[in-house]
């Protein structure tokens, strides 16, 4: 599900905007360890400058959990931490490899100009 998101750009205006993908951000955030919703939002802001709205975040979490790419851990009071699963890691690796290929090709073309 792709929903409205709040894009907080960096100083050079490189906010991902339309090319952002909330499920990918969530997987990348959880790759460094389990987190609950609020921690994910702040982590995503820190590592790629995009602030997901809470509705957008939970839309992504719900779909990722249904796919079996993330799973909930024991709740901490009212907070619910999640962690990435083995299949989630595989999907994230594949997706990032595609992006790396795309970035490399795109930068190569820019440098050739």
């Amino acid at each position, binding site marked *: 599900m*792709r*929903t*409205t998101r*709040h894009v907080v*750009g960096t100083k050079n205006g490189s906010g991902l905007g339309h090319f952002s993908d909330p499920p990918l951000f969530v997987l990348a955030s959880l790759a460094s360890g389990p987190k609950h919703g609020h921690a994910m939002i702040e982590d995503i802001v820190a590592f790629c400058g995009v602030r997901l709205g*809470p509705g957008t975040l*939970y839309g992504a979490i719900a*779909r990722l959990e*249904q796919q079996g790419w993330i799973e909930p851990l024991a709740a901490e009071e009212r907070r619910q931490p999640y962690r990435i699963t083995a299949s989630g890691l595989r999907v994230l690796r594949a997706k990032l490899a595609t992006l790396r290929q795309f970035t490399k090709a795109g930068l190569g073309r820019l440098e050739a100009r």
Partner: protein
Amino acid sequence: MNPRLAHLLVRLYPRAWRERYGAEFEALLETGRGGVGTAANVVWSALGERVFPTLGGSMEQSRFQSWCVRAPWAMFGLGPVVLLAAAYFIACFILWSGWKIFMPEADTPFVRIDGLAIPYFQAGRLIYFSAPIVIGWAIGLVAARQRLKAVWPAVGWILIALIGGTAQIHASRTGVTGGFEHIRVDFVMGSSGHGIPDGLFHALVILSVTALPYLIWRLLHRANFLSAGD
């Protein structure tokens, strides 16, 4: 965010979703930033969850997304027109059945009514008048969620506005062999009361109301992009 507002916002989601994520989502809303932007994000997401319930991951292109790309003419042209035709058919059926039930002797159902006939006919009127608006909003919602350019949604809005603005329901027994109830829908531009034909004026009103939410959404996103460059 105010806990009461957070609770109300969570209530916008479908029951199944709330049962699974409601408590933790409400806790997130209470501890996170408040504000109009956050509330709008939650309302939009809840609406999306109701229209397109979570079924699978979006990292793979869904069949619905695929249709939007492969056959936009069907998703934004034919589909809305068929939906509107279905809504008008239901409205006409309510009018016809109400006529048969509540005033079988009358020559037309457009007469003074009372009792149970009022809510019955009002339901038909509601479907008739709200269908173009609701379908137009649905077009905007799909276009926004699928990040589509405005060309095909605009085609859908114009079609829906023209049909909705010019459609007129007529019902009478006179002139029909056997005196059966006869209901038909005509599409007429009408007289030029406002300087432009009435049908066109109504179409422009419908077009404005249906396209406005999408245009605001586009404007808000453009504002986000501009703020990114500050």
